[in-house]
């Protein structure tokens, strides 16, 4: 990434640089910039504004347009089984991420430090699975998981999420471990830790930033997903929150203020994770090109 275009050279004058714009002009420019940024901020905050304002109306107030009340929040649990749905989302999310880490971290370690015959080919094959959208294999996947009897509980969804998240996570771990010196691993082996010991005692502690990145990325991905939860969790009493909201919305019979209150509840955890771990997210997104 160091092949930058050279700055325009045609004006190689030895004169003094052009006079800087006056203080006043610069000030005006800054204010214009600030105003533009404010406009963008209003647009980006719009969803939150809609959710908050709408959820603070009762259904009649929503239809007539005027007034505010806490009614939709007080009756939220009557309209949407919100506690159970948040619990389901939490279970599915944490279990899937756990599987992804257990599977992706050793694989990433092996692909970067314990190379074996054909490991590069296998690595490329695994990583290219990243490009397969679930929809492309939806029908066989659904039938397979159903035949295995896994759509009854959370297991089907967890395994599908884990399989979908593994290629990118393995890629991320592999890239990360390439930056770790080989000597460290050698030292562990020489000290008689064995490969599993090295993995557990040396590699995992080193990999904490990469683990955080994978966790944050996958948390948002899985928490926000609809399709897998919709198809691979058959019991309505085990529905994750996004599925609950989407099904209610598609039915078009639920009161919209209640739906917006539920949306706000569903958005909150992902947003907190997001604001808290923003830098890990950025790291993960640009992994592979940002050096």
């Amino acid at each position, binding site marked *: *990434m160091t092949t*930058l*275009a050279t700055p*325009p050279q045609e*004006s190689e*004058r030895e004169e003094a640089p052009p006079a800087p714009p006056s203080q006043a002009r610069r000030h005006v420019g*800054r204010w214009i910039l*600030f105003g533009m*940024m404010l406009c963008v*901020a209003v*647009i*980006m*905050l*719009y969803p939150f504004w*809609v*959710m908050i304002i709408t959820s603070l109306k009762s259904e009649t107030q929503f239809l007539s*347009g005027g007034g505010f009340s806490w009614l939709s929040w007080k009756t939220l649990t009557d309209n949407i089984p919100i506690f159970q749905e948040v619990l389901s989302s939490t279970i599915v999310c944490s279990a899937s991420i756990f599987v992804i880490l257990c599977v992706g971290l*050793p*694989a990433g370690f*092996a692909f970067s430090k314990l190379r074996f015959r054909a*490991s590069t080919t296998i690595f490329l094959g695994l*990583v290219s*699975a990243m*490009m*397969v*959208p679930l*929809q*492309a294999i*939806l*029908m*066989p*996947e659904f039938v*397979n998981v159903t035949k295995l009897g896994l759509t009854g509980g959370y297991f089907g969804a967890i395994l599908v999420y884990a*399989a*979908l998240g*593994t*290629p990118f996570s393995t890629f991320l771990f592999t890239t990360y471990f390439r930056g770790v010196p080989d000597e460290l691993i050698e030292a562990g082996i020489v000290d008689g830790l*064995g*490969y*599993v010991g090295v993995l*557990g005692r040396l590699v995992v502690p080193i990999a904490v930033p990469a683990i955080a990145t994978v966790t944050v990325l996958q948390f948002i991905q899985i*928490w*926000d*997903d*609809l*399709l897998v939860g*919709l198809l691979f969790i058959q019991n309505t009493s085990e529905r994750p929150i996004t599925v609950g909201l*989407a099904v209610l919305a*598609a039915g078009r019979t639920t009161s*919209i203020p209640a*739906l917006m209150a539920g*949306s706000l509840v*569903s*958005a909150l955890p992902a947003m907190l994770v997001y*604001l808290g771990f*923003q830098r890990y*997210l950025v790291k993960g*997104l*640009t992994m592979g*090109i940002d050096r």
Partner: protein
Amino acid sequence: MSVITATTKQNAGPWMTLRRRRQFAGFLFTLPALALVIGFIGIPIGQAIYYSFTSWNGLTSQWIGPSTWSQAFHNSNLWTALQNNALLLLSVPFALGLPLCIAVLLHQRVAGWKVFRSIYFMPTAISWVVLGLVAERFFAYQGTLNSIIHFFGFSHTNTNMLGYESTALSALGITFVFTMIGTNTMLFLTGLATLDPTLEEAARIDGAGRWRIFRSITLPHLSRFIQLAFVMTVIALFSALFSLIFVMTGGGPGYATTTMEFLIYQTGFNQGDFGTAALYGIILFVLTAIVGIVQLRLIGSDE
């Protein structure tokens, strides 16, 4: 993990050299990931190809042969979905251009830019299900869009973009652009942060104007980030619109907002035609594979 320990020790007898032991351990470490991905992604691809030649309802399948494919290509729904996907591609320049402008804006580092950055990225954390619900409120008859139109004095103009075949896809495209702004802005901003500020400074001293600096320094520097954002946006367009469509339009009115991915879902789960849905899946797979090869080359060129 204990399973792996046991097998490593068992097989790694004294006849194994250190080198071979290391390779064997490496192989074992990749095995769980491989099993998961082959079982849940690899095998289903093969099955999808097989079942695309059959008549399949999920329980029993009957081999038909290549005629399923010629039949599928005579189905107007497939062409409608492909056309919708193609039309939605028109939103990609906006999904890249707007974030680029926003990133450049943020990069000026006006007072409070970090707060603005957090605000701009916030919608990225929200589910597209929720963003779809909000977008529905925006485009609804009594929604924000009409309020804005009325505010500017056109009090007799009322839109209902999601309600008409002619406008529903545009509404979906606009929503898609909004949902992509956060991610792409983040990418571009990361790219801008790696740009050496002295370079811009030097150009400015040499008398280059703002536009000139942007075109000759900033844009070339960002090219890889723009490529990555392009690929990610196109892939999202092909495979992540499901939530938005499910919540906003259900594929309608008619088939106006049915894209390939939604057509697969509808054909399989609403019509019970698993065979045709598997076939559509293969088409979607090929479409994304084309884009995917571009991305792999991007990643590959790094090594």
